[in-house]
């Protein structure tokens, strides 16, 4: 009986141990995958956050207090993502949350944000619905599927006169959404295409590639996020599909990870990928400053553009709190709606017209980059191009 009581007491004490910290810092919540198949994104986020904090705190922080970040892991899984946001809202009681790079996770998170009425700025989850749902508390300062396809991928395919497209998509919200949008646009342009579904963590694509080869396309739009893309690219070369048929990595970062060249070998030559960052393309002074400070801090050039995306949203969040002069949700949302802030990719202004995905949405300009002799060459859009698209006859 005594043991029972001890047990009950211990459990109660454990349960009551609340996490009340003295609030002498402003805490910004971050959600993103630090573990799981896309843990590289978490690493990129960490670097971007560190630079953002350096910049913010050097200027005296926010509302006179130092800024601190609470980074909750989502594992790239919607269930964990929802629970991560819930923890930030109920345990850490942060005034605002930023981040995320998986559409499926983001779609789970916006429901929680809406439930707890906590402002959330998404940076790298592209699904239309994230802003199309028109939740008052949800913003996005990053690419959106429809925008990426309408302004970049579809025109790129059309302008470069590709004759037949193979769309290969993973089974995720991002994959499904961006593939559907691409199909619509290609239909409008009258370009023939086929679509194949693949598993994100698959490692053997011989079957799919053999099928694609039978259709004889001249470009593959690969909507696969993660190292799966590497094996896809390498095996496409093995079965003799590429480089005659080019491959466009519709997300981007996987083509920039350290492991890319190791995994694909010479099959990586002429591969294309989406990006919002290039050594020679600096749209704002902040972009230059970020590039320089990154090099100073990490001793190398930044590769994954998501480092910069998270940097941007931390700055946007800090700016909103500063202007709201409060850490309460309503004033922060009001301030966000009036955002007019220069970040690395341009000047952020959120759309306010309800009814479409453009509500609370701001999209940075994107680039189509090609690996040419292991160098990144911007090949689209024309006005930003640093070289011409190379094809193999």
């Amino acid at each position, binding site marked *: 009986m005594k043991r029972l009581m001890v047990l009950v007491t211990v459990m109660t004490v454990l349960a009551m141990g609340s996490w009340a910290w003295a609030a002498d810092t402003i805490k910004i919540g971050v959600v993103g995958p630090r*573990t*799981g198949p896309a*843990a590289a994104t978490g690493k990129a986020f960490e670097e971007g956050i560190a630079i953002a904090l350096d910049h913010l705190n050097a200027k005296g922080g926010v509302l006179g207090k130092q800024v601190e970040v609470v980074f909750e892991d989502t594992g790239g899984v919607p269930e964990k993502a929802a629970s991560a946001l819930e923890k930030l809202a109920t345990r850490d009681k942060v005034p605002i949350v930023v981040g995320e790079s998986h559409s499926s996770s983001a779609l789970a998170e916006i429901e929680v944000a809406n439930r707890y009425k906590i402002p959330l700025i998404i940076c790298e989850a592209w699904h239309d619905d994230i802003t199309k749902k028109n939740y008052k508390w949800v913003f996005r300062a990053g690419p959106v599927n429809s925008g990426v396809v309408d302004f970049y991928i579809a025109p790129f395919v059309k302008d470069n006169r590709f004759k037949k497209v193979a769309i290969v998509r993973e089974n995720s919200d991002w994959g499904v959404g961006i593939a559907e949008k691409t199909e619509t646009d290609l239909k409008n342009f009258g370009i023939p295409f086929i679509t*194949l579904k693949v598993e994100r963590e698959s490692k*053997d694509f*011989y079957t799919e590639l053999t099928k694609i080869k039978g259709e004889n396309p001249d470009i593959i739009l690969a909507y696969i996020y993660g190292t799966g893309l*590497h094996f896809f690219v390498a095996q496409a070369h093995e079965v003799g599909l590429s480089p005659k048929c080019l491959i466009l990595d519709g997300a981007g970062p996987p083509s920039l990870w350290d*492991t890319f060249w190791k*995994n694909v070998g010479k099959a990586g030559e002429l591969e294309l990928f989406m990006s919002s960052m290039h050594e020679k393309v600096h749209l704002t002074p902040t972009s230059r400053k970020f590039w320089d400070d990154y090099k100073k801090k990490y001793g190398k050039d930044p590769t994954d553009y998501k480092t910069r995306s998270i940097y941007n949203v931390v700055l946007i969040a800090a700016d909103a709190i500063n202007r709201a002069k409060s850490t309460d949700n309503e004033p922060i949302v009001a301030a966000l709606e009036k955002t007019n802030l220069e970040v690395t990719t341009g000047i952020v202004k959120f759309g306010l017209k309800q009814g479409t995905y453009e509500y609370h949405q701001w999209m940075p300009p994107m680039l189509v980059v090609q690996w040419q002799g292991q160098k990144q060459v911007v090949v689209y859009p024309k006005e930003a191009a640093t070289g011409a698209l190379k094809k193999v006859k």
Partner: protein
Amino acid sequence: MNEFLMYLTNGIVIGVINAISAIGVSLIVGIMRVVNFAHGELYIFAGYFSYHLSASLGVPPLLAMPLSIFFIFLIGIGMERTLIRPTYGDEMYSLIITFVLSIVLQNAALLIFGPYPNKPPNLVSGATNIFGLYHYGNQRLLSFFISIGILLFIFYLIKRTWFGKSIRAVSQDREMSSLVGVDHLRVNMLSFGLGAALAGAAGVIVAPIFPVTPTGSSAISLNAFVVVVLGGMGSLKGCVIGGLALGIIENLGAAYLSTMYRNIFGFVILILVLVFRPWGLFGQKAQ
């Protein structure tokens, strides 16, 4: 037609590797009545060992492969001594121990090697045009021949050597074998090590083709279990035929039925076998 041949080739190559991995499981089940759920993790560890040995430490890939297999053999022996030995005779206990062990090893791999797939350097690069019909990756062809070599070696080991005879004696009749002077604790330990080493062999062969990830281990274990049940527990020949059958069925199924359901075909057959021939396609019906 060319496509069909291509799918078939892929099925056979993967089937042979399946067989090696499955023999590792089958050996341990046949001799000790222990299902090693940590089989897939040993395979993954071997893949990472060969990657780190060759990519990070600069050991030549051809040396890194046997070295990794040997490490896994030692790990297998260690596992048997510390965790598996006390479970002999208690099926439930051994199932729980090896399942928990698989989770521990999987997470240890995440901690040590990180979540990313890694591949040791290819021994050969490029592709060969097979009879002018289709292109096939050279590394895959090489892996196929190495696998055949390993299979022949295992058959020799088990059919022709003293060790193989003791193994067969113990798996047929534990009491009889101890009467004729076989030290079955020692046989258990060595065969557990051998089973582990076979998981490792499959791992190092596959790693350059399909890079290993810590989270991929359970699929590998399941694959081996399907083959073992297909072929009949404890049957070597069954493993080879079961492995080939699974490889071919999966690849043809993926090609002509559904790529997404690639991994389900094996299980469907597993369930059918369990319903109609629970002792396996090639095993013997026993009481």
